[in-house]
């Protein structure tokens, strides 16, 4: 019990010194809990939405996905004949049934041809207004659509785009463009996370979305009183036979949930990963805090040992303090996590994803996970310093020196660190030499982990060398103050090492990713320059297919030499070795594609693959299945019939763009797939007549003005877009890494603040013999800068090594160019110096304010 009491007293006596460690725990726990609360809230929102929108039993066409998502390659939703409705009504236990038409492969524009689709990536849904919809939508102004001229829009979209009754709306589908005027605005009765929804009357919807009358995408069935959904499903299935999908409300909701779960899980685990990095960094901070507290308390602990405390008791007393710290930090962290989640929801709201705080979901597991994680990490981190405290001999009580300088990092540490770093380096070498991506990435992972741990272990030793070099370069010009700053940074290499290592982790990741990112851009640019012959690329940034009307608009645009259509579909391949490969991707393009993209072949000529009943395969496929030029492959096209295609070209596996594609001509595809089942173009390429590039570009842009969902880019635009895309991704990752870097900066502040406390007498002495406040503050700032630069140097070096290795490895996948983004690297290095200055602000200020006499008198 006395152990508990002394620990409690110590904890509260030093709460100021614990504050930064508590904040580190708080931040990490908050990030974990925030992520969990946020994703749980999203789940709840979607759960409610799907539960509310699903009818008791839904019947949909065979081709529809499990969740009833209505997209197909031909750009039209899979439909069933209207007669199904009558059959469903005959089934037992049906109270009512109605036919519905919906499509998500649509684009909706306003009168100015501006895209009204959500920018968040949420779907745009156009459908027929019906009773099932009326359950979740309340008409707030105007009326539901009654004829072909009318359309109703959801209130969120109307708000966002400032739409009013009577405004003109265009619905662009594979059928064509249908225009109507807004007749009503309807609001959701549940939270809609961001989809834009438009309603036509059912007849108009059939025409505008499918181009046929008397078809439905779904039939919504309501159960009579006392009939369960499962029973109803059985009855309906029995009535319809197996020709259609029949799903209960729960099954539909689950399938919908599964669709969003994929995206949410990626987000959740990515964010938890970054929280994990922050925890890792926090560990260094906690280790430093407890090491310094133990060092400062050496005499006290020696006294405890002298009067009979066992090692175990001393050890435990430190761990109990860590436990208290962990509990305090985690409890606050859980609270902050909920706040963070609300903040994230607001942020998502700004980006177009509406979430309501009414749905805020804090599962009981969230605080438990937060607390357990926070406490365990804190106690584990304090374990080493606690053990060191236990080893303090009773003699320490008698020794004069309050805090003996930490022993120099021993040779065991040096040996372990060198072995780890060496092994890590070797693994990285193997990764860069690997000729199989899978094996190489294993080596890469191992190399990264080992070299990181190696650097952490060896850090205190490196601190000596690196700080001396930095000192010689930077600090000497500041005379004795610089020299003292250097000596102070060197006096406890373990502490400097740990503080720098914390910063190193975050910056290593930044450096690594920036190298990979910029190599990616450089490699892609290089490949584009080398292989792409076409002038313009037309595509949708939301991977929507290109409607025939839009393709026609491109084709009729002036100044173009040729236009290449590019379609992707799937087929079951039966190869000469007798194997059948289900759902294999095959690309159908116009013969001009062979000049638009120069693809190397190992056998045959690619243009020949576009001849009638011909195709190309890629090198690996050919090798795996014993295919040679002239081999015949039976290709059973999806939605079409089977064809015997002759292999006339084998493409090299060194191809980067469109790697692994197998080509045939659109003409061949058209022979076996009926016109109404033909997949829409996923890409369209256009090449200008010689010297008419600028004119062609302008006319293409105006040709596509009515189709804002498609973007035309010339090669320069394309490269810029690629760069932007990767840049955005990197920025997002940097943003998430900022958490780890903030914790590391707290670590620098912590180390300096505790050092200042530890060196109170020294500071008093220096002030007494004439060191001015300014000089004192400068000395502390410079120590801080040196520590920060030490961490930055290690981190950037390590990260660039990782990045270069990753590039070597990814060269197998076509990332052949190594590009080190020096401006970023140097920028990060210089920023680190400022981080050091910033971290020293408060410790330096407090040191300057110390009363000289009290400082000298401090024990």
């Amino acid at each position, binding site marked *: 019990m006395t152990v508990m009491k002394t620990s409690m007293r110590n904890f509260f006596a030093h709460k100021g010194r614990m504050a930064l460690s508590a904040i580190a725990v708080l931040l990490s726990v908050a990030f974990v809990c925030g992520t969990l609360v946020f994703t749980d809230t999203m789940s709840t929102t979607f759960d409610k939405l799907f539960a509310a929108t699903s009818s008791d039993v839904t019947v949909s066409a065979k081709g529809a996905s499990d969740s009833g998502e209505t997209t197909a390659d031909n750009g039209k939703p899979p439909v069933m004949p209207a007669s199904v409705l009558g059959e469903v009504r005959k089934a037992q236990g049906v109270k009512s049934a109605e036919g519905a038409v919906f499509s998500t492969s649509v684009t909706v524009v306003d009168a100015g041809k501006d895209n009204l689709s959500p920018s968040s990536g949420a779907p745009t849904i156009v459908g027929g207004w019906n009773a099932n919809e009326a359950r979740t939508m309340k008409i707030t102004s105007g009326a539901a659509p009654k004829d072909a001229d009318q359309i109703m829009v959801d209130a969120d979209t109307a708000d966002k785009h400032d739409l009013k009754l009577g405004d003109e709306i265009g619905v662009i589908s594979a059928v064509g463009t249908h225009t109507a005027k807004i007749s009503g605005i309807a609001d959701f009765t549940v939270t809609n996370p961001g989809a834009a929804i438009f309603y036509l009357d059912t007849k108009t919807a059939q025409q505008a979305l499918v181009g046929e009358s008397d078809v439905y995408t779904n039939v919504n069935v309501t159960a009579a009183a006392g009939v369960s959904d499962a029973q109803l499903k059985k009855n309906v299935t029995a009535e319809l036979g197996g020709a259609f999908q029949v799903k209960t409300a729960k099954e539909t909701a689950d399938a919908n949930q599964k669709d969003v779960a994929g995206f949410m899980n990626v987000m959740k685990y990515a964010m938890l990963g970054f929280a994990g990095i922050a925890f890792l960094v926090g560990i260094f901070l906690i280790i430093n805090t407890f090491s310094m507290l133990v060092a400062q308390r050496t005499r006290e602990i020696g006294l405890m040992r002298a009067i009979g405390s066992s090692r175990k008791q001393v050890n435990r007393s430190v761990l109990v303090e860590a436990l208290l710290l962990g509990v305090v930090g985690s409890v606050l962290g859980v609270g902050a996590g909920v706040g963070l989640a609300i903040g994230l929801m607001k942020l998502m709201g700004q980006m177009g994803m509406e979430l309501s705080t009414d749905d805020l979901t804090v599962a009981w597991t969230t605080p438990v996970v937060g607390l357990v994680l926070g406490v365990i990490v804190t106690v584990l981190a304090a374990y080493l310093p606690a053990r060191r405290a236990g080893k303090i001999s009773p003699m320490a009580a008698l020794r004069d*020196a309050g805090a003996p*300088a930490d022993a120099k990092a021993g040779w065991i540490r040096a040996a372990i660190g060198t072995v780890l770093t060496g092994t890590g380096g070797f693994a990285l070498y193997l990764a860069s030499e690997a000729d199989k991506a899978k094996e190489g990435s294993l080596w890469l992972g191992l190399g990264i982990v080992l070299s990181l741990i190696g650097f952490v272990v060896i850090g205190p030793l490196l601190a000596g060398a690196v700080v001396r070099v930095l000192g010689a370069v930077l600090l000497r010009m500041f*005379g*004795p*103050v610089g020299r*003292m700053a250097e*000596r*102070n940074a*060197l*006096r406890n290499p373990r502490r400097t090492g740990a503080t720098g290592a914390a910063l190193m982790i975050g910056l290593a990741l930044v450096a690594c990713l920036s190298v990979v990112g910029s190599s990616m851009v450089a490699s892609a640019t290089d490949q584009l320059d080398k292989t792409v012959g076409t002038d313009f690329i037309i595509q949708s940034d939301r991977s929507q297919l290109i409607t025939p009307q839009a393709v026609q608009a491109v084709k009729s645009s002036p100044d173009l030499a040729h236009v290449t259509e590019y379609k992707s579909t799937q087929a079951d391949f039966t190869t000469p070795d007798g194997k059948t490969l289900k759902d294999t991707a095959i690309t159908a393009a116009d013969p001009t594609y062979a000049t638009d993209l120069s693809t190397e072949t190992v056998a045959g000529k690619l243009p020949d693959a576009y001849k009638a009943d011909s195709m190309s395969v890629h090198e690996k496929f050919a090798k795996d299945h014993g295919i040679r030029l002239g081999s015949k492959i039976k290709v059973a096209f999806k939605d079409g019939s089977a064809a015997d295609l002759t292999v006339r070209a084998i493409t090299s596996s060194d191809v980067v763009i469109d790697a692994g594609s197998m080509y045939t001509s659109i003409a061949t595809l058209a022979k076996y797939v009926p016109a109404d089942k033909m997949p829409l173009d996923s890409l369209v390429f256009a090449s200008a007549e010689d010297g008419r590039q600028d004119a062609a570009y302008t006319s293409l842009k105006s040709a596509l003005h009515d189709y804002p969902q498609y973007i035309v880019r010339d090669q320069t635009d394309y490269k810029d877009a690629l760069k932007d895309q990767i840049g955005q991704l990197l920025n997002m990752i940097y943003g998430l890494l900022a958490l780890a870097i903030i914790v590391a900066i707290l670590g620098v502040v912590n180390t300096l603040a505790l050092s200042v406390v530890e060196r109170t*007498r*020294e500071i008093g*002495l*220096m*002030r*007494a*013999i*004439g*060191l*001015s*406040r300014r*000089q004192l503050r400068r000395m502390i700032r410079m120590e801080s800068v040196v520590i920060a630069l030490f961490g930055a140097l290690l981190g950037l070096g390590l990260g660039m090594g990782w990045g270069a290795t990753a590039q070597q490895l990814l060269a197998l996948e076509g990332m052949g160019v190594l590009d080190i983004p020096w401006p970023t690297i140097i920028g990060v290095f210089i920023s680190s110096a400022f981080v050091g200055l910033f971290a020293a602000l408060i410790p330096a200020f407090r040191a300057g304010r110390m009363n*000289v*006499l009290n400082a*000298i008198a401090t024990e």
Partner: protein
Amino acid sequence: MTSAVTIPRHGGTGGRTAVAARARQVVKAYGSGETRVVALDHVDVDIARGQFTAIMGPSGSGKSTLMHCLAGLDTVTGGQIYLDETEITGLKDKKLTRLRRDRIGFIFQAFNLLPTLNAIENITLPMDIAGRKPDKQWLTRVVETVGLADRLKHRPTQLSGGQQQRVAVARALAARPEIIFGDEPTGNLDSRAGAEVLGFLRRSVDELGQTIVMVTHDPVAASYADRVLYLADGRIVDEMYKPTAEAVLDRMKDFDARGRTS
């Protein structure tokens, strides 16, 4: 007797005054109202240039406070303190710091040296901070005087307590301050090492013309001084010239007895 102003303002040492530092009606009080404690009660004192002055008194007599105030380490509640002709009471921290750096030397009881610097770096530290080049000849002489020539590259932890104090003395002397203040500089040393350090202080007064003020409670240490001031309850109660250890001890006993009877 609250005054120890017995020395003429101008002595025979050329243009400079014979008084290195003086205090006039210095009051130092802590707290206010009921809890007010007066540490110095209207003290007048002159510190003679080129002399070794010891300040003695029982614990709580205010002797350390007086030294701290004279040295510009502590602020006073009332009265004036002059260093040579400069009034230091009322100076801002910046000027006080510079004054300590350029014109005053310190020797504390313990923890005099920066552990990160070696002996010679510690000795030249005040000049380094000021950005001044040390006078090579003088430095050599000081180092030889304190007998540290072969220990200059040692870190403080590699030196004995006596050696550490000698480094501190050398540091105080090296910058040629107008006045050196010692706060029980031998308090932590055994008698032999203490005698060594005191011997150096004495010699620096005799041979180098240094002015030294030292707070002590050790009659033997006080006997090295030219003049001893006795403090009790924040006032100067007595002084003695050319003291011997016995005479100081007797006088101390005297005070003790008086303190008990009153």
